[in-house]
């Protein structure tokens, strides 16, 4: 295959980035520099400000009484003992929220979610009553004193049982007076399909090679180290509401809070302060926020809500829970002719999946992957169960984790059937560089890519042929060694307003840049960092565009009173959308600076050329004005027709998503005695186009790969038959320490996005999306010579040992 790899146009891919940068870029620490982070000095000195650091005069604390049962009718709630406890101000139940019509709230998936349980509870740990007390210690005492009587109902736990006759009905609030629902079954949320169903079927009927595999992508949880919380502060005198909140989308929260509360948006100020990680968990609105807001309005004083880890793992947005069946039809050489994927999605009791409105299964239809597949069909059914709501979270890019997992697993299954290597089957099917922009069979237009080159680079780096040879020898000796491959295509940067909106608001994003008379800058965006380094990297973009030292550029996000309206940070959309707005706003400033420079030097604008930090008159050495000089003049006496000041705003509606890609290879060794898997090597190549800050990208990759390792090798949130959630604390929920976490090798190529103003693509979720199927690929590959085609995650020692036992590999020999 080596001969077929396209490398001719890619000679620039291995350049030393810093070495290629201009002197001005290095001086201002602009695009391409591994600039140290502007955020760090405050964080290393304990001077960040996270929600629970907020302390306001008169502030009280809210804590929740939660359901011990998965499914039960609430017979009665007795508040008296709790209210009698000194320091308790109020105990709220659904009855108190009903007059405000806030006992239910809308979700991002156009369903509704109970704020405090009304007639019944739908999942274990669901919010039933809220206690407001002087501090968290008294609140914790008081919740023990609230007496709730329940009548236990049979829970629905297995999504495969959700639509059988006699299944418990999760959501009787959706039944009409005749006990009927619009959907074919009360537990069915939606059925969504895309692609050419008949065309796909007819290919499968005739195809010489077909493969099929079912797989479960387990329910896991993003579990940022900081849990969710807020401080709501309603000022009864001014009629203003201020909410400090762990939100990845503060402007959206403002719009929603305004519409729920009836307070106009101009009187609602939402502030996302420093956030201790989000990972998709902090996109939606949780009952705790609503209760804190209501309590603050009722009591006229600030109310803080901060959940603990158990509550966080049990009730906030989890990820995945997709049961997937993949099928590939191919010719004898393994060239794919068609793809068919069917999914059953467990959404829990309320469909609160964070999604663009028109995409009930997110961008699961990117499941054609990096491959040239002529025809495909995807069908997704979502169902209710007696579990917490969620689904889209944890670096998923709107279900792309699941999409990449199913296609990459199926590529392995196809390779196994044909007896070719996992790398070879991919090389035979990649979309070729000259095919971009490439229209997939399920409706996306991939912007750019060079997949063959990337995979070959990784194969060379790890010496893939030598690994295959070593594996062959090990197999003869009865040892278990696996080599996993994943070559994924991401879709990030939601998105074009023509098909992407959140509750009707188009998924643009924004930047506002203001240059001061001394040439320093304040700039704000509609996104919100949770550790991804926006304060540093946005400044680098402006630094390059305007030739201003990034030290002199202040970046702010998260305060809806001051930042321009944006859709927030998730789906790796900050670079594709807001960074594009940053570049365009900076270019508007440059265009105005050109006018000013021309007037200052009394030359025509056409005679000027931009030289990184100044306008120079072409062909006249020394005749030039720096951006700093121009900034000063813009506030002084101006030529006719030019407005004073030097600032610009841009709201950017992206023409398409960006499609970063990666090639990952993983080598594992599995202990035949214990089933324990050791990751010997993990090599990750990511291509996200133009790289703004290589140091920060590398940190994103390390973090994402570590999450992938956790998901693949240990994380899960299982439920027992009674609907009890299991393993919902750090006693069991696997978060690797430095000891377990493998060492990561990273690499890159650069294939810019042709439609992005900087050529940059998103990247932060790629390592999570791509690494998980790579780990499964490696584990399964260790057993593939024994006929194993798939093993479900998590690949814990116990589960792997059980697989070995099934295969008769676990006889312990006497030593």
């Amino acid at each position: 295959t080596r001969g077929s790899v396209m490398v001719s146009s890619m000679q620039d891919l291995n350049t030393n980035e810093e070495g290629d940068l201009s002197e001005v870029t290095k001086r201002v620490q602009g695009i391409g520099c591994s600039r140290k982070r502007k955020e760090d000095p405050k964080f290393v000195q304990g001077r960040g400000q996270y929600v629970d650091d907020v302390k306001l005069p008169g502030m009280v604390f809210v804590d929740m009484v939660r359901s011990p049962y998965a499914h039960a009718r609430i017979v009665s709630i007795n508040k008296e003992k709790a209210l009698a406890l000194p320091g308790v101000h109020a105990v709220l139940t659904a009855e108190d929220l009903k007059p405000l019509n806030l006992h239910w709230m809308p979700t991002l998936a156009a369903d509704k979610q109970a704020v405090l349980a009304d007639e019944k509870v739908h999942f274990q740990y669901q919010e039933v009553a809220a206690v407001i007390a002087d501090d968290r210690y008294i609140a914790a005492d008081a919740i023990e004193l609230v007496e709730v009587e329940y009548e236990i109902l049979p829970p629905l736990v297995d999504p495969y049982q959700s639509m059988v006759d006699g299944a418990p009905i999760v959501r009787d609030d959706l039944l009409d007076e005749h006990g009927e629902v619009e959907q074919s079954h009360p537990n069915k949320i939606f059925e969504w399909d895309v692609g050419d169903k008949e065309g796909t079927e007819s290919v499968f009927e005739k195809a010489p090679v077909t493969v099929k595999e079912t797989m479960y992508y387990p329910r896991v949880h993003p579990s940022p180290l900081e849990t969710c919380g807020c401080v709501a502060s309603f000022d009864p005198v001014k009629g203003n509401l201020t909410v400090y909140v762990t939100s990845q989308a503060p402007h959206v929260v403002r719009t929603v809070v305004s519409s729920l509360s009836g307070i106009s948006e101009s009187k609602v100020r939402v502030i996302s302060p420093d956030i201790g990680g989000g990972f998709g968990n902090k996109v939606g609105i949780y009952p705790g926020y609503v209760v804190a807001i209501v309590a603050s309005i009722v009591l006229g004083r600030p109310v803080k809500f901060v959940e603990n880890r158990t509550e966080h793992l049990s009730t906030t947005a989890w990820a995945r829970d997709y049961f997937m069946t993949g099928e590939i039809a191919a010719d004898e050489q393994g060239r794919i002719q068609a793809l068919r994927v069917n999914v059953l999605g467990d959404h829990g009791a309320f469909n609160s999946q964070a999604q663009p409105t028109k995409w009930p299964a997110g961008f699961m239809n990117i499941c054609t992957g990096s491959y040239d597949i002529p025809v495909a069909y995807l069908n997704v059914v979502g169902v209710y169960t007696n579990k917490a709501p969620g689904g889209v979270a944890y670096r998923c890019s709107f279900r792309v984790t699941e999409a990449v997992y199913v296609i990459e697993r199926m590529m392995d299954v196809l390779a196994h059937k044909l007896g070719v290597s996992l790398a070879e089957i991919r090389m035979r099917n990649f979309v070729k560089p000259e095919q971009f922009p490439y229209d997939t069979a399920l409706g996306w237009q991939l912007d750019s890519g060079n997949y063959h080159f990337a995979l070959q680079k990784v194969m060379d780096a790890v010496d893939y042929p030598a690994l295959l040879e070593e594996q062959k020898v090990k197999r003869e000796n009865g040892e278990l060694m696996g080599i996993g491959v994943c070559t994924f295509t991401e879709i990030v940067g939601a998105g074009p307003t023509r098909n992407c909106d959140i509750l009707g608001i188009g998924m643009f994003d924004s930047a506002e840049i203001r240059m001061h008379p001394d040439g320093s800058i304040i700039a704000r965006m509609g996104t919100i960092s949770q550790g991804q380094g926006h304060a540093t990297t946005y400044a680098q973009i402006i630094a390059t565009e305007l030739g201003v030292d990034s030290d002199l550029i202040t970046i702010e996000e998260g305060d809806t009173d001051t930042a321009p309206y944006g859709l927030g940070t998730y789906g790796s959309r900050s670079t594709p959308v807001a960074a594009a707005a940053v570049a365009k706003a900076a270019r508007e400033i440059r265009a105005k600076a050109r006018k000013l420079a021309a007037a200052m030097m009394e030359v025509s604008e056409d005679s000027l050329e931009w030289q990184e930090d100044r306008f120079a008159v072409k062909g006249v050495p020394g005749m030039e004005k720096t951006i700093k000089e121009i900034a000063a003049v813009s506030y002084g006496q101006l030529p006719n027709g030019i407005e004073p000041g030097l600032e610009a705003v841009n709201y950017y509606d992206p023409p398409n998503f960006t499609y970063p890609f990666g090639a990952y290879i993983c080598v594992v060794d599995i202990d035949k005695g214990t089933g324990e898997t050791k990751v010997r090597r993990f090599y990750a190549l990511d291509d996200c186009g133009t790289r703004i800050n290589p140091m920060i990208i590398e940190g994103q990759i390390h973090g994402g790969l570590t999450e992938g390792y956790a998901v693949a090798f240990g994380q899960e949130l299982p439920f027992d038959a009674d609907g009890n959630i299991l393993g919902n604390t750090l006693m069991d929920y696997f978060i690797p320490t430095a000891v377990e976490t493998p060492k990561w090798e990273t690499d890159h190529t650069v294939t810019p996005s042709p439609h992005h103003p900087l050529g940059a693509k998103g990247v932060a979720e790629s390592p999570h999306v791509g690494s998980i199927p790579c780990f499964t690929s490696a584990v399964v590959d260790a057993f593939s010579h024994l006929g194993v085609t798939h093993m479900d995650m998590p690949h814990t020692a116990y589960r792997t040992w059980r697989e070995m036992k099934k295969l008769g590999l676990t006889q312990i020999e006497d030593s």
Partner: protein
Amino acid sequence: MTKHTVSFRLNGKPTEIEIDPRTLLVHALREVVGITGTHIGCETSHCGVCTVDVDGESMKSCTVLAVQVAGKDVVTVEGLADEQGLHAVQAAFIEEHGLQCGFCTPGMLMRAYRFLQENPDPTEEEVRWGLSGNLCRCTGYQNIVKAVITAGKNLREAN
């Protein structure tokens, strides 16, 4: 509940607080003293984001009662930097990009501060084990390990 008066040294300064006996040290620091660098990430004593230094030992302050530090010497992240500037571990975390969201950072720094006194010239393996009581969700640890090794080297060279 009867309040207790607890006197201890905090970041080198004599400090006195009035608290309930059940008050956890982490809450006493954050809510009574009002220094909020020390964080809370779990209730099962795993994550270590609340790590502070008590009489020369790393302690998870969510698992110590504030009354137990009476008469002791407590150092938090706020006490690491001095007139000369950032401590070597703080500078190295910036240099090696050993933090992202910053939530685990105070605990990591306090643990690294103590660990490098326990083991001034650690191997990478020893750093990984030495910091295994501290969880991080952002970095994948690799740059934290680098930062601790860099800090150790800088501290050795300074001494």
